């Protein structure tokens, strides 16, 4: 095989030496790719080059041959660096496989089921910026017509954030089937996070609880992006703000809760900062852009609205998500 390479090289070099045409260089460069893919090191290329020259121009002075020997010596460390690249590529592939598997485990671990409630249409989309999602949605529903939802965002991304999320999930599990209010839920999870987590790790969370009996939403927030309320009657948007520290900052943190009455076709839009802090070439995406996108599809099912907002925002950002993107819409519909 080495012999075949030597002959091919000599042939290509010989052509080039006669004409020095672009065509010859193109052929030579394509050949160099093949050499790399066959793990031929640069010092071997020089050695093959020298041998080819010796055959074609045997009468060149000795200094020429010595000069190639020197180049071979200079290239040895370059050859080693290239071999290192091969093993780094392999390692990268192994890590990719492990990350994929971990992302799968995370998905199974964190799975939650969408509540089914007459009169409530839910749309939901959560897209990670990297392999592992640092945003998290958890539903708590009970038989009494309540649909509770937690939308959380770990400060930090990737692996550490994913591990942190699993903690939040098990904290929420311990509340399942209990009719806890936003104030209570945020208080419990705050203590879980505060107790178990590194000092540098914080979680923001919005908790909303829809009551199908009277069509109200009660909500609270732990330093989270405010939700948006859309009033169908007046076509107006407003923010659902509630005061509260990030989870994990202080065990004594207390959380507010507020209640709004939803009317027919009103929507509550809950999200993480990945939705509002998307960056385009012209700067951050304005809230008004979000309002407009929602309004464009306001008469469609919640899932279609959510998908539309994502598609358009993704397009504006040239498909480059800088942060995990999570968007949920609760839409009150006719029973």
């Amino acid at each position, binding site marked *: 095989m080495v012999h075949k390479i030597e002959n091919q090289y000599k042939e290509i070099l010989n052509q080039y030496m006669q004409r020095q045409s672009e*065509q010859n*260089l*193109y052929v030579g460069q394509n050949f160099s790719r093949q050499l790399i893919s066959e793990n031929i090191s640069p010092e071997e290329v020089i050695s093959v080059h020298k041998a080819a020259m010796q055959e074609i121009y045997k009468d060149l002075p000795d200094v020429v041959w010595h000069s190639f020997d020197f180049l071979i010596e200079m290239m040895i460390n370059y050859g080693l660096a290239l071999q290192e690249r091969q093993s780094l590529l392999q390692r990268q592939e192994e890590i990719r496989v492990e990350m994929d598997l971990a992302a799968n485990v995370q998905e199974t671990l964190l799975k939650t089921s969408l509540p089914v409630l007459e009169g409530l249409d839910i749309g939901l989309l959560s897209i990670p910026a990297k392999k592992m999602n640092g945003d998290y949605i958890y539903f708590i529903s009970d038989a009494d017509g309540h649909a509770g939802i937690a939308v959380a965002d770990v400060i930090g991304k990737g692996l550490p954030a994913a591990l942190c999320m699993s903690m939040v999930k098990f904290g929420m599990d311990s509340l399942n089937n209990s009719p806890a209010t936003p104030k209570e839920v945020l208080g419990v999870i705050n203590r879980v996070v505060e107790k178990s987590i590194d000092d540098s790790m914080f979680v923001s969370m919005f908790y909303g609880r829809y009551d199908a009996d009277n069509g109200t939403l009660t909500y609270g927030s732990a330093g989270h992006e405010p939700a948006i309320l859309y009033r169908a009657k007046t076509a107006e948007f407003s923010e659902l703000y509630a005061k509260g520290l990030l989870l994990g900052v202080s065990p004594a943190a207390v959380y507010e809760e507020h209640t709004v009455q939803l009317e027919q076709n009103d929507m509550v839009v809950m999200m993480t900062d990945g939705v509002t802090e998307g960056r385009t070439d012209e700067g951050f995406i304005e809230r008004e852009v979000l309002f407009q996108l929602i309004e464009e599809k306001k008469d469609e099912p919640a899932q279609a609205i959510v998908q539309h907002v994502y598609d358009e925002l993704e397009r504006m950002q040239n498909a480059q998500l800088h942060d995990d993107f999570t968007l949920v819409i609760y839409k009150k519909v006719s029973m």
Partner: protein
Amino acid sequence: MSNQSSVEILTEWDIVAARQLGRNVAKELGFGTVDQARITTAISELARNIYLYAGQGRIEIQQLSENGIKGILIIAADQGPGIPDIRKVMEDGFSTSGGLGAGLPGVKRLMDEFKIDTIPGEGTDIRATKWLR
């Protein structure tokens, strides 16, 4: 100020023509042998992408001059299928691990500036610039 010329890419011979055009312009602008070879390789790679994935397209070479600094701009434009996942093609090792060539990350490294616009189903427009230092 800019001065342009272009090559339609239809066959593999056109890749060589585009290379030749780029090398001539680079030489004329005063780039050294190594930079000439790099610019030519970038053109080769872009032309080859057009030839392989879009079927046909165009390589355009412009001479630039900004604030007294000269440069060369390569534009590779096609109406091919576009690139569905830019993140992936810009990833190291995606195209090169099999020795398939420099790939787009390679072009980016060979030049000083690199910009890619692609719309699935409509085509791709890549612009790469190198300045003379």
